[in-house]
Each structure stands twice: as C-alpha cells, then as structure tokens.
C-alpha cells in the first residue's frame, strides 16, 4: 500500500498535465492583472484630477462666471448653469421618447419589428457623437444662423435616446409575464396594464437607465463644440442663445497658456467627474433594489 509508485497517474505534475497547469496559471495571472489595471486607471484618473483640481475649488468657483478671453479669476457658474439647462432639456426630450420606444418594442411590436428597432438603437448608440453634432448643425444651427443651447440639447437628446431606450427594454423584459397575465385575466386592457402594472413594477430600473444616460451626456464635448460654442460673460439661461458648458470650459481652459486656467480646468474636471460618479452610484442602487423586487 505504501509502495505506490510515483509514476501512478494520480501523482500530479507530469508531462501534459504539468503544461496545462502552467497555461492555467498564466491565464489566471494575466486576467487578474488586466482587471487590476482597469481599476487602477479609474483610481489614477480620479486621484490626479482630485489632486490637481482641488486647490482651485472654492465658493467663488461655483458662483462666479468665466471672465472673457484669458482673463484670470472667475468660476464656472455659467458653465454649470449651461450644462444643467442643456442636459435638462435633453432629458425632457429623450426620456419620454426613449420610454415610449421601449414600451413599443417590448409590449406592442411584433418580434421581428422589435428586433429591427433594437438593432437600429444599437447602431444609433454607436454613432460617433461628433457626427450627431454635425447632423444637428445641419438640422438646427444653419437654419437658425447661430448655435444655441436648444441645438446642443437636441444633440445630447439624440445621444441619450438609445441609452434610455435600450436600458428600458432590458428592464421591461424583466417584468414577469405572469404579472401581465394577471392583469389581462382581470379584464384590464393592454395599455392600462402597461401603465399601471408593468411600468410601476419596472420603475426603479427605468430610473437607472435615465440616470446613466444623463451621466453619459453630461461630459459630451464634441457635439457641443459644433452646436453651442459661444463665449459670453455672465450666466445665460436662455437656451435660444449659445450656452457655456462644463466640458467646453475644460477644453478651453486647458488650451489657455495661463497656469491658473489649467488649475481651473482640473477643478471643473473634478466637478464633472464627481457628478458622474454620484449619478452612477445612485443609478446602481436603484437598479439593485428594482432587481430585487422583480426577482422577488
């Protein structure tokens, strides 16, 4: 019994088996490193933005407007207001339409039509945002003769639409068929079932999709360069004029020769990244709660 030969197949680390174990080890290590790298990139970005930007953060930075061309001092009040107005208008346009598209594909459309719509949304989601910007230039800016907050908002809405619609589709698909059946069996019509049963059940997840879309477009720069690039002093709230925005403030300030502007660019980047991070965390929390409810 104790004389089991070491050549017995149950003894590991021989020939083929040893090689397979080595390959396994290599794959394991390299994938772990890749995962760490992804997390490290985020941490490095957040940390360096924080370190370089935090010095310029003070109350004035939030309450004062950007001074004209290269003058020092001031803040990003106009950019915050501009971004708020444009993202807000874009949300008002994209969320209702996106939800309706999702309701159509998941509740009313035939399978084949739904597939086509889903595919179209994925393509739209993949369109480079600069192209969306050019499209809006042709659609609104040229006929109007000048860029405007409205034009910027339309561009952002086009970018938001597929994100809202696709996440809403995913969430609506999670609502159990048995709940809809329960409503149909009570003699409730299809539309009322959607409105009173399906949508409330999916509400958390729908909110998540909208928040993620907002977080995504808050930092969009390219379409705004084309549609709402105007530099006026003071806070402007009229969306028919060009509006300032945080991403464009970062862009301009970092192009400026003065080191003070660079610090301000970092500070604005910090504000933007903090906003996006907070939105993402809130969105995840809603989604987790909604999933819990749906999977009961």
């Amino acid at each position, binding site marked *: 019994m104790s004389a089991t030969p070491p050549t017995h197949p149950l003894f590991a680390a021989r020939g083929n088996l040893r090689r397979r174990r080595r390959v396994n080890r290599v794959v394991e290590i390299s994938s772990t490193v890749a995962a760490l790298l992804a997390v490290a990139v985020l941490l490095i970005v957040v940390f360096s933005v924080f370190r370089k930007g935090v010095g310029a953060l003070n109350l004035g930075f939030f309450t004062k407007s950007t001074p004209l061309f290269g003058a020092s001092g001031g803040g990003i009040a106009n950019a915050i207001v501009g971004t708020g107005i444009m993202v807000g208008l874009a949300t008002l346009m994209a969320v209702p339409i996106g939800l309706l598209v999702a309701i159509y594909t998941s509740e009313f459309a035939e399978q084949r039509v739904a597939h086509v719509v889903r595919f179209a949304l994925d393509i739209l989601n993949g369109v480079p945002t600069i192209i969306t910007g050019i499209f809006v230039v042709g659609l609104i800016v040229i006929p109007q003769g000048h860029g405007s907050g409205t034009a910027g908002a339309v561009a952002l809405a086009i970018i938001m639409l597929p994100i809202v619609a696709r996440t809403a589709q995913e969430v609506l698909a999670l609502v159990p068929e048995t709940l809809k*059946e*329960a409503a149909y069996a009570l003699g409730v019509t299809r539309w009322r079932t959607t409105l009173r049963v399906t949508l409330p059940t999916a509400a958390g997840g729908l909110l998540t999709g909208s928040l993620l879309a907002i977080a995504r477009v808050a930092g969009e720069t390219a379409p705004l360069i084309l549609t709402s690039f105007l530099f006026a002093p003071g806070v402007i709230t009229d969306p028919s004029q060009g509006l300032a925005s945080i991403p464009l403030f970062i862009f301009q300030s970092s192009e400026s020769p003065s080191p003070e502007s660079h610090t301000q660019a970092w500070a604005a980047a910090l504000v933007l990244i903090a906003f996006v991070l907070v939105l993402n965390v809130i969105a995840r929390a809603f989604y987790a709660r909604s999933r819990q409810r749906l999977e*009961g």
Partner: protein
Amino acid sequence: MNPAEKVSESPMTEPQREPRAEPASSPRPTIAVAEGQAKATRGRTHRDVGTVRLEGLHAYYGSNHAVRGVDLVFDPNEVTAIIGPSGCGKSTMVRCINRMHEEIPSARAEGKVVLDQIDLYNSAIDVVAVRRSIGMVFQKPNPFPTMSIVDNVTAGLRLTGAPRSEMKERAQDALQSAGLWDEVKDRLNNAGDGLSGGQQQRLCIARALAVDPEVLLMDEPCSALDPVGTLRIEELISQLRERVTIVIVTHNMQQAARVADTTAFMLNGEMVEVGQTEKMFTNPDDDRTEQYVTGKFG
C-alpha cells in the same frame, strides 16, 4: 374558519336538473369528501348563470395542435376538475375559455366557447369583457408587487374604471370570500408580496372574485403551495362553488378527488372521458382513464 356571516346552513340539496345529453351534467350524489365542509351561502343555492359549453374546441401554438376538438359542459353548480399528464392540453383548453390563449404569440383557437348562450369567439365579442366574466387564478401566486393588499384586491375594479364608491366594501367581501379577511384586515395597506405563498394565492383568488365573475378558472392553483396552503385553497373551493362555476386544472389526482364533483380526463389534446369524480376514480369507462388514475402512466 370564516366570518360569522358565513352561517353554515343545511348541506346543499341536490338541485333539480333537466337531464342533458352531456355526460358532465349527469346528476350525481355529493361526494363524501365534500360533505361536512362548511358551505358558503350567499343567498342562493342554485345558480342558473355561469354555464360554459365547449363545442369542437381546437387550439394551436403555431403548427402544434394542442387541443383537438373538445366538447364539454361546465355546470354552474359543480366543481369540475381537469386531469391529465403534462402537456396533454388541459391548461391550454382552460385558457381558451377566457381567451387568454390568444395572448401567446402564434397561438390561436377554433370552435365555440359558449357562456350562457353567448359564443365568446363571436367576432363582436369584447375580449376584455369576457375576462371580467371569467376570472382566472394561475399556478404561481402573482400579486402585483407594487400594490398593497387592498389595492391588489381592487385592482380589477380600479384598472377597469369601476366607480370608487363601493371599492372598500367589495374588497372586504372578496377577501372574506377568499378566507383571507381575518388574516389581513389589520394590514390592508401592507405590500401584497409580504404574505405567505398560500396567502398570496388566496389574495389572487380574492382579486379575481372582486370583479364578480360568473366562472373561475384555476390553473393548478396549488402546485406552488405547501400542504397547509393547499388545504386552505381546497376548503375555499368547496365554499366558492355556490358563488361561481369552478374549473380547476390539477396534476394532483387526490386533489381532484377531494374537490371536484365532475372530473374530465384529457390525453394528447383530446377529451378521453368525463364523468362524476367518484366513478372516474373507481370505475371509469375508458381503459386509458383507468390506467392514468391508477398510476400506470403520467
């Protein structure tokens, strides 16, 4: 087990029936298990409405012929059980009665389903109205998770635009009929999905009863419940038989024997045999019925 108003009266006298051709309606003595259980009385012992007649009913899923020409009558004063092996078409057949079958893409049905002289497959019929007259309880309890207990019960009323005035009264009535009132009366505004599985299923029964249907279809209502929950539902069925026509699909033959007056056996989409429950389980006419009820297949 129930509120005081449900006085136990003398056991239901066997109502006089005209002899009919269909085997389902042949007069029968009350089966032993149903006796002695409290009968809910709502002022009527014999119902004239709520007769459902299937005539040459066929149902399809795409090219799959799931129900193959079923003729059957559901007597309003009886509980009818549909038994048969998995995939024999019993759920499909029942879902044809309230036209839920057609909710499934590519599904369609042919033939007649007649509720009190009206063919429900007539093109002038409003599907939504059909479902208000013929309620349904599903395999898995499916209360609406976003609604409170009382809102679940009144969902059928609220979502179909009924007046709000009697809502509370009807909710209480439905919950009492479903034997759930005493358990939930102090927490009517709590979430419906906080109840136990059996309570949730009775909540679903209350929800179906609240719109006052003439027929109640139950598609394996106890398959997701524990024995205690199952017993409560079975007691409930024998109380509700005087309020609605009950059709229950079940995998469980003991359950059919306990609750049903008439039992129908389906196999491969066809109705093999229909008869009074006792006879179906002791001395069926068809060999296949005999084999199924004695456990030789299925």
